[in-house]
């Protein structure tokens, strides 16, 4: 009996063994793998030293490659720049590197470094500044010398400041070119506030206001050895490197710094729907969110797990994989080291599925609060975090940089390990608790950038829509400072031209005008002409009727109100265009003469305009600033120029007038050409022009 059992078991054993021999060949992907134990992570020794001047060093040797890298951090940031000089921190960080030192010009530094294939870069962000170095080890003496020289003796050469300003102005001009950049920037403004140090952006005026002295002062305020921490890794001997650093920075003394804490963020939770129109896109950029938190939040491990589940298990699997609505989609409660991060959920989807995608995103947020995540979801999220943890330590550069970051923001140096321990303990209940606490689908701010005409449903389905205007405030006209003398001279000269145009008495009697004209517009490669009529009553009533191939178009401006009528129906006339039309009227010399006391007129002297001798007067009325050029002989206007923001960005607009004819004793130009950045945009030929007509009372009425 026993024998028999043995035999059967033996057979079974052979059978089982046979199977296992067979299956030794391949393991199926989902079978259980017995992973051999993972080799222990060999975390290298990091040497930490504080020099007598207060500079803190972190060093780790890595002899595998003949290179040396460094990264320094400073407490500074754009949060410390004045609101009327936004851009100062960034320009300081840039020109620190490009502007040269007491010993070398910026261009010499570029050449020297690149010939050695070395790089030194510096920059200042929102709440910190950095300086990084990368080199072949044989160049250490020379590169370290230049690095110390840049940090200690920068001269911020005017020429390189100008270059940085050109770059900054060009970046402003280009900031609406890319729809993703618009979305990120404007979303940040919604969360932190448009004027908040954490969201505001440079404008032409703030860049123009920055002077060399501001930059030098900003540098001096923050760049001192006792405000510097530096990580150094690569092919060197630690002892020797410390000696070299000491030598390179010898004589750079510790000094008292007065760096206030970074500004507080004030946020009130509320729901809002915000829209930015981009007519040339077929995909909508969506971001929804509200203020997030800090990294030292004890809930951080549970939030990490929640983020993984919300982003991947829910948003990605449902909205991308299952619905095919987006390529990228996410939901993430963001945390920063030293000021609150942002919760964002976002996606880009074709215009026709915009509202659908938003609703699904909000629904996934709600679902996290209403039902507990599954055991499988939790396990996958935790496994991913824990099993990939070893990658935090797979290079010396990563290890030492993380340490530097933690030390810089005052976090424990083993912070990553603490988070790992936290994640190991996270339960489904923890995820549910933080989801309920931190997810607020009813109090999100929604930002939609796209082409509303093609949306699946009106955006207002979600709530009251706030339209955001992203047009770029015009650059200031660059002009010499006004003096009492130049202002007096300006007014006197203008009064002479008023005489040439028909005299003050006649001009102040003007009440309105009516003109028939042919308007030619340049559209792409073509010119399109149509008949038009223009009625204007001083100072702020306008009516334009244009006979276009699509039918009659009418624009009425009546003070603060404006409307556009077409065969398709009426629609509100965009506010910025209303302002632009009225600003245009106010640039008419006859208008100026009538309302002279509203203007400041500056005499800028003789100039060439349209290749003729002209006298240049600079007029300003509030922020309407423009030049009018008068013929030096006839004293009649020849044209004007000013800065304006067109849909393509800021432009210099010029108007050229001629063919003056006498209308009721007043000289009126019957022909004009408009150009933007030197290219023709429009042309007007007047057929008939009359002053002081009796107008129908309803001419400028705008019905509700």
């Amino acid at each position, binding site marked *: 009996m026993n024998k028999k059992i043995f035999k059967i078991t033996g057979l079974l054993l052979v059978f089982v063994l046979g199977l296992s021999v067979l299956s030794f060949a391949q393991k199926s992907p989902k079978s259980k793998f017995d992973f051999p134990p993972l080799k222990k992570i*060999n975390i290298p020794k990091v040497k930490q030293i504080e020099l007598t001047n207060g500079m803190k060093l972190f060093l780790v040797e890595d002899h*595998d490659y003949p290179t040396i890298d460094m990264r320094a951090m400073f407490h500074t940031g754009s949060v410390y720049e004045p609101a009327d000089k936004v851009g100062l921190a960034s320009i300081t960080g840039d020109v620190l590197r490009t502007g040269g030192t007491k010993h070398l010009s910026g261009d010499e530094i570029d050449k020297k470094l690149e010939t050695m294939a070395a790089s030194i870069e510096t920059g200042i962000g929102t709440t910190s500044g950095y300086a990084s170095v990368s080199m072949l080890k044989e160049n250490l003496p020379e590169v370290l010398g230049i690095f110390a020289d840049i940090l200690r003796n920068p001269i911020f050469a005017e020429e390189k400041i100008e270059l940085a300003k050109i770059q900054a102005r060009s970046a402003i001009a280009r900031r609406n070119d890319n729809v993703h950049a618009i979305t990120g920037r404007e979303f940040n403004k919604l969360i932190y506030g448009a004027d908040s140090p954490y969201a505001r952006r440079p404008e032409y005026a703030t860049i123009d206001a920055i002077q060399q002295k501001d930059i030098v002062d900003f540098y001096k305020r923050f760049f001192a050895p006792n405000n510097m921490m530096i990580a150094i890794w690569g092919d060197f001997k630690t002892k020797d490197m410390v000696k070299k650093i000491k030598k390179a920075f010898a004589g750079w003394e510790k000094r008292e710094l007065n760096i206030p804490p970074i500004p507080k963020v004030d946020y009130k939770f509320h729901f809002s729907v915000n829209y930015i129109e981009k007519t040339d896109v077929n995909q909508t950029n969506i971001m929804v969110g509200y203020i997030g938190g800090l990294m030292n939040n004890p809930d951080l491990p549970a939030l990490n797990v929640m983020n993984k589940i919300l982003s991947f298990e829910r948003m990605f699997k449902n909205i991308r994989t299952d619905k*095919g609505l987006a390529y990228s989609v996410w939901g993430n409660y963001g945390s920063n080291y030293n000021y609150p991060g942002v919760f964002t959920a976002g996606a880009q989807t074709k215009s026709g599925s915009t509202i659908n995608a938003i609703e699904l995103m909000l629904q996934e947020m709600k679902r996290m609060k209403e039902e507990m995540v599954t055991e499988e979801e939790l396990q996958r999220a935790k496994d991913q975090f824990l099993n990939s943890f070893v990658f935090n330590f797979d290079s010396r550069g990563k290890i030492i940089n993380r340490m530097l970051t933690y030390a810089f923001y005052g976090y424990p140096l083993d912070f990553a390990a603490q988070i790992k321990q936290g994640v190991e303990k996270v339960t489904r209940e923890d995820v549910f608790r933080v989801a309920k606490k931190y997810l607020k689908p009813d109090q999100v701010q929604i930002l939609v950038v796209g082409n509303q005409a093609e949306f699946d449903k009106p955006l207002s389905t979600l709530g009251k829509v706030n339209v955001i205007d992203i047009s770029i405030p015009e650059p200031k006209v660059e002009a010499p400072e006004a003096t009492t003398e130049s202002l007096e001279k300006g007014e006197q000269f203008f009064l002479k031209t008023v005489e040439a145009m028909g005299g003050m008495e006649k001009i102040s009697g003007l009440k309105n005008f009516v003109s028939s004209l042919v308007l030619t517009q340049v559209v792409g490669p073509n010119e399109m002409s149509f008949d038009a009529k223009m009625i204007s009553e001083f100072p702020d009533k306008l009516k334009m009727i244009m006979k276009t191939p699509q039918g009659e178009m009418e624009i009425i401006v009546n003070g603060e109100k404006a409307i556009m009528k077409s065969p398709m129906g009426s629609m509100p006339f965009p506010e910025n265009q209303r302002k632009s039309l009225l600003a245009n009227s106010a640039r008419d010399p006859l208008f100026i003469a009538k309302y002279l006391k509203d203007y400041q007129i500056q005499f800028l002297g003789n100039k060439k305009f349209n290749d003729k001798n002209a006298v240049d007067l600079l007029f300003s009325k509030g922020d309407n600033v423009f030049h009018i050029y008068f013929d030096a002989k006839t004293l009649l206007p020849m044209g004007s120029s000013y800065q304006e923001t067109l849909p393509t960005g800021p432009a210099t607009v010029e108007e050229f007038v001629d063919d003056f004819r006498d209308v009721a004793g007043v000289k009126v130009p019957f022909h004009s050409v408009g150009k933007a950045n030197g290219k023709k945009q429009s042309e007007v030929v007047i057929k008939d022009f009359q002053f002081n007509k009796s107008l129908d009372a309803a001419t400028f009425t705008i019905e509700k």
Partner: protein
Amino acid sequence: MKQKRLFVLLIILVLSLCLMASLALAQSFDSMKKKVSEYTLDNGMKFIVMERHDAPVASFHVYANVGAANEVNGITGISHLLEHMAFKGTKTIGTKDYDAEKKIFEQMDKLYAEIISTKYGLNPDTAKLSALNTKFTALQDEAKKYVINNELFDLFMQQGDAGINAYTSNDATQYINSLPSNRLEFWMSVTSDRFLNPVFREFYKEKKVVMEERRLSLENQPIGRLMEDFLASAFKAHPYHHSVVGHMSDLLKITRQDVANYFKEYYQARNLTVAIVGDVKAKEVFKLAKIYFGRLPKGPAPRPVRTVEPEQWGERIVKVSVQSQPILLVGYHRPAETDPDDAALSALANIIGQGRSSRLWESLVKDKKIAIQTGTFNGFPGTKFPNLVAFVAVPAKNHTNDECLELIEKEIERIKNEPVTAEELTKFKQSTKKGVIDGMKQNASIASTLTYFEVIHGDWGKAFDQITEIEKVTPEDIMRVAKKYLTVKNRTIGEIVPENEAE
């Protein structure tokens, strides 16, 4: 006189320092090279392993020698779509019942063909179309019942994959993983199954995702539009002329069968090259490779790309009109990277357009201040076939593409007629060396470099030898290639023109 002697001494000193450094570098490359070994399976699939035992991790790189350049009209974008489909699982991964779902796929494919022919035929019957669509949605819902959403992805992620991804380019499709090194056999098992038993499930949904990707990366970015039209003009015959993501109409109409056929042709063992870099033993890798990947069929060699870009007959100019500030791109045809002129062309590209002391940066950005950025693309849009070396300028506010072009032309004339300086040549050689070293620091980038050189140059060892080639470049070589390739007749100009300024 004295000064001159001092100068000569200095030069000798500098040269000998450089020489010493080069020797040290060559030695460290030699010792790295010794850590690499290779093995070719009977079916032609090649495995390259570099052992690095510092950290218990490894990077895995599968290089499929197929990309958008293998596509013809009608299936443009299929290489990239296939890359997406390679995440959808196998007969056992990502499904609850493969046999059941397979039947639904067949019905869906038939129905989809009918929808397309109805929708795009003459006089589309809208009632019929809507009925077909309803039926299609119902089938899609039924198929969904058998799907385990993203199971392949989850398997890798759950094992701690820190770098799961894939890329498709004009030349290649690459699948990347980074795992704790004790997951070697797991990777072998899942990846071999992935290429042995792929199932293209959720096909029609994934096409929509890819269409969103096209909108995201190409259609709604001014630069994306410029690149598409620029390449379409520069290449009139060779398939580098269409974008990797493909045309929208092709994406709409590509069938599951198209993808299966494409997979069969280009994903056989001999067309795949694998590099594994990290804390693994080469012997172990080769043993497991045989067990797991030995199962892949050998298959016939894929058809080579036939079309060669013919000589250009005259300058081509393309303008993209969009709501954006201007950007200028000037490209010249150049030979494939395997051509002997490659090193001199790299030097030319570097000296003209790379870095703060490059000629374009010095002239356009620093000196004349008419651009805020300049640069070079070399090996654009791929390197396997004859391609382009291109220069780019981003005009500063109130400056134009024309102004930038004028200065770029000036620099191009200069490099054709004057030898570059010794300093410039040193800059090129040193920065290339530094780049090669930096690329050898991370497992993932080493794996990518090894497969690249193995496939494009036929030998992974050239990844380490490229520095020797670079050393040989002389100022005369640069002048010669400049004269040969940088001619007006051989160039294409691409411009972003602000919409209301288009001419």
